[in-house]
């Protein structure tokens, strides 16, 4: 029994599944990456504010085509910084909740934010009645921006954010239920991957030396994801989620889960477990 166990463990180690030792304590070397990450987030929230101004203005002006065109690109700044944005649960709900988070689904009064607007623009094909939701979204985004600027980022949330974004994709995005009316899910994927990879890239110098195999594996999986997504690029963004083939969906799914599995060790590796 024990013999089997030793052998299996040995193989798993050889395959990289269980590799890695935790660091005893976090290092001051983390200060640079953590600060750089906040600057990245601050840049994205500033972008989000600007993009959301244009998006909500188009809605309130009744410009359906423009509003639809701005929906996906506006979301990307939010999706990149989701590990931090979702620290504010009230705003996360009012900005990004989906209809199935509410008992009465689309008809629920509490259903607001991006997906409420998406529902109106695509499902109803109109900007009618959306102005209050647009105003609310804009106000929420301003509040988010202020709160993020005033926030001292918890190191474990930042470091854990790389895996958290992958968990997010694995749990609720890969199934194509995020942007169900607009089918712009691939924009969100791309942003989630970018957000995860940003954290990973910032931390990479801290682990590359002692864990080159880990770094090679994670780099490889991010590259594989990029290669798949590249096939679906169109202009500045992506084609409809419906064009994603089953084989590519499976490939993304396996990479996402493996990235989540591997990146979940980052906290421990950096002494933040």
């Amino acid at each position, binding site marked *: 029994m024990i013999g089997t166990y030793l052998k299996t463990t040995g193989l798993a180690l050889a395959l990289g599944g269980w590799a890695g030792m935790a660091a005893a*304590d*976090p*290092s*001051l070397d*983390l*200060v*640079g990456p*953590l*600060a750089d990450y*906040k*600057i990245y987030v*601050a840049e994205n929230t500033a972008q989000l504010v600007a993009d959301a101004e244009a998006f909500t203005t188009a809605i309130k002006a009744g410009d359906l085509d423009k509003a639809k065109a701005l929906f996906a690109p506006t979301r990307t700044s939010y999706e990149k910084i989701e590990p931090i944005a979702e620290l504010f649960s009230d705003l996360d709900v009012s900005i990004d909740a989906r209809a199935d988070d509410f008992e009465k689904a689309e008809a629920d009064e509490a259903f607001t934010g991006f997906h409420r607007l998406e529902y109106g623009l695509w499902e109803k094909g109109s900007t009618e009645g959306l102005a209050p939701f647009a105003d609310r979204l804009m106000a929420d985004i301003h509040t988010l921006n202020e709160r993020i600027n005033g926030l*001292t*980022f*918890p*190191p474990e949330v930042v470091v854990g954010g790389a895996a958290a974004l992958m968990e997010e994709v694995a749990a609720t995005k890969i199934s194509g239920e995020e942007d169900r009316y607009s089918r712009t899910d691939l924009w969100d994927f791309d942003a989630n991957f970018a957000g995860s990879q940003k954290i990973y890239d910032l931390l990479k110098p801290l682990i590359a030396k002692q864990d080159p195999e880990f770094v090679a594996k994670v780099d490889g999986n991010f590259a594989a994801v990029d290669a798949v997504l590249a096939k679906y690029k169109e202009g500045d963004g992506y084609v409809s989620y419906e064009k994603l083939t089953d084989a590519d969906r499976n490939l993304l799914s396996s990479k996402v889960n493996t990235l989540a599995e591997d990146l979940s060790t980052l906290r421990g590796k950096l*002494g*933040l477990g």
Partner: protein
Amino acid sequence: MSNPPSRGIYLAILGAAVLAVAGGAAFWTASRQKPQTSADQIVTVDARSCQPNAITVPGGRRSFEIVNASDRPIEWEIVDGVMVVAERENIAPGFHATLAVQLAPGSYEMTCGLLTNPRGTLTVTASDEATAAASEVTLKKFLGPLSEYRVYLVMQGNQAVKAAEKLRDAIDAGDLPAARAAWAEARLPYRRVEPLAYRFSDLENVIDPSAAYLAGREQDPGFTGYHRIEYGLFAQNSTEGLAPVADRLVADLGTLAERLKAAPLDPALLLALPGAMARQLAEAQIPEGENSYAGNDARDLTAATEGIAKLTGLLRQVVASVDPKLDAELGTEMQAATDAVAALQGQDWSQVPAEQRQKLAADFTRLAETLDRLQPIIGMN
């Protein structure tokens, strides 16, 4: 430089101070006492150098007693490369001050009076005390605050450059009113990050030197930076000849921004910065004024207070769960200092009555003393 009369109230406030610090003048009568004998090392600074000029002490928490034997006010600093480890500013002729600092083994320099004076050497040897200090306590709780402070340094550093560019443009355009307004604005980001920025001694000496510390005063070729421009705009009432100074300031602030971004931060530094700054304000700018030509110290102090508040807020995040009472006290003291500065806005500093300045200085001293209490609780040694 005005010499406000001494006030009895200071006896009460300062009489119990452990670190008796001499002011720039008779103002700090209370500290004119026999030198403390408990210091590990006495350093006498005369017109040209430190005596002794080479010191060796064991690593750990060391105290220095600095005696000003020259005829001008001095500052005394311990410098590691270009980084100021600790300093005492504005020690009046004939006065003394003590300075306690945590020193890791290594080679340091001491500044000795005028910036042109040769520096002394300070050698810190290995010791059990230093080793123990280095190996203690987890850094985890400081990581967030340290990172946040780095973000602040980067943001304010960049803003300082932008504001200086605006000042330079106004000077280039020869627009005196615009240049004066831009100068006041340009001071603010610098003052916010001054707790760390002044520790880059090479940059501080070109960005923010005071004529008082230069041999040739306003005519000294080393008189550059903010105050040189202030002198031109507010004392000489002209933008003339300021363009190269402004260009140089922009360039130096660019270098500063880079340094601030790359500066290695650690808990001991974070703990030391706000108290040192608050004390410096209480000892120098609040009693004496710093912007002697523009007289707008109140506005500068707002920014300086914001910089201290940023640091204090970050340290409160660390201490809140350890000592909620101290956390609350810091909140109260910080608010008091902020309110006190706010109440003086709009006044020319030379017109602010001495007792108001003294009261304000007392607020900052109290804040510094409260900040001092953090070290034994959340310090790493």
